[in-house]
């Protein structure tokens, strides 16, 4: 199986999620070995995911947890209990 760049781009996400079947994986890897452009696309996409998973990208507001539990306490006190359904 020989792939051109456009086909490899279609499988970047599947590649990053380890979802490609063996034959396709081999073809993609073979292409990546010799193609700097596709390697760069892969790396940049992977870096977007690294950045996304960084806890500093999405931070909790200061005091969030305290306010949440305070409001929950009020809600729990105000109820007879969760409704059984």
């Amino acid at each position, binding site marked *: 199986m020989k792939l051109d760049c456009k086909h490899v781009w*279609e499988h970047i996400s599947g590649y990053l999620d380890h979802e490609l079947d063996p034959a396709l994986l081999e073809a993609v890897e073979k292409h990546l070995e010799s193609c700097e452009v596709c390697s760069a696309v892969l790396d*940049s996409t992977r870096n*977007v995911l*690294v950045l*996304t*998973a960084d806890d500093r990208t*999405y931070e*909790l507001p200061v005091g969030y947890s305290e306010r*949440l539990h305070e409001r929950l306490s009020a809600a729990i006190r105000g109820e007879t*209990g969760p409704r059984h359904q």
Partner: protein
Amino acid sequence: MKTAQRTNEGELIRRILAGETELFHELIRPYERLVYVTIFAILKNETEAEDGAQETMISAFRHLGSFRGDAKFSTWLVTIAMNEARKRLRKGKVAAEDSLDATLEDHDGGDYTPTVLTDWREIPLEALEKKELREKLREAVMNLSEKYREVFVLRDIEELNQEETAAALGINVTLVKVRLHRARMMLQKALVPYLKSEATPRSGFFRRWFA
């Protein structure tokens, strides 16, 4: 560990429903971040996200009796959070939902072109330390149309698996994969320009490339 956690959760839920309502605090503690970030990434508004997270937890408490043990509690909670975020989007309290790619079909997977920047690879670790870049990413996520943003948030921010994401959104796994791929490629495209200035060419690479 996961099984143990689930058993423990099942037991907690049983006791809460039996009247030990204070235990609800303990039940949701591991998911405080999950719920807030899910809503924030959809709305990109701190006040709305915090209020939405509180409403989600209260709603979860009130409807705990309808939780079925065959689903994961976290997935159930995320579904409520997602609905809360959608409701707030509809109310138009936050930025109106509008995006150029909103009309694109889901199954045409490959009609975009990622931005190719061959000098991108070398410095990412340093670049990723930049605070501005994280803001750019949050903006880019916010600029995705809703159907892509939802999948991206659950898969890549919350790290739910394909099946959990599909269940939380009420779509099938294939659609999760297609939308996730598109979302990632759109984000790649959106973020590359901001990394460009941070990157330096690998020595020898440009000679090889442009020779």
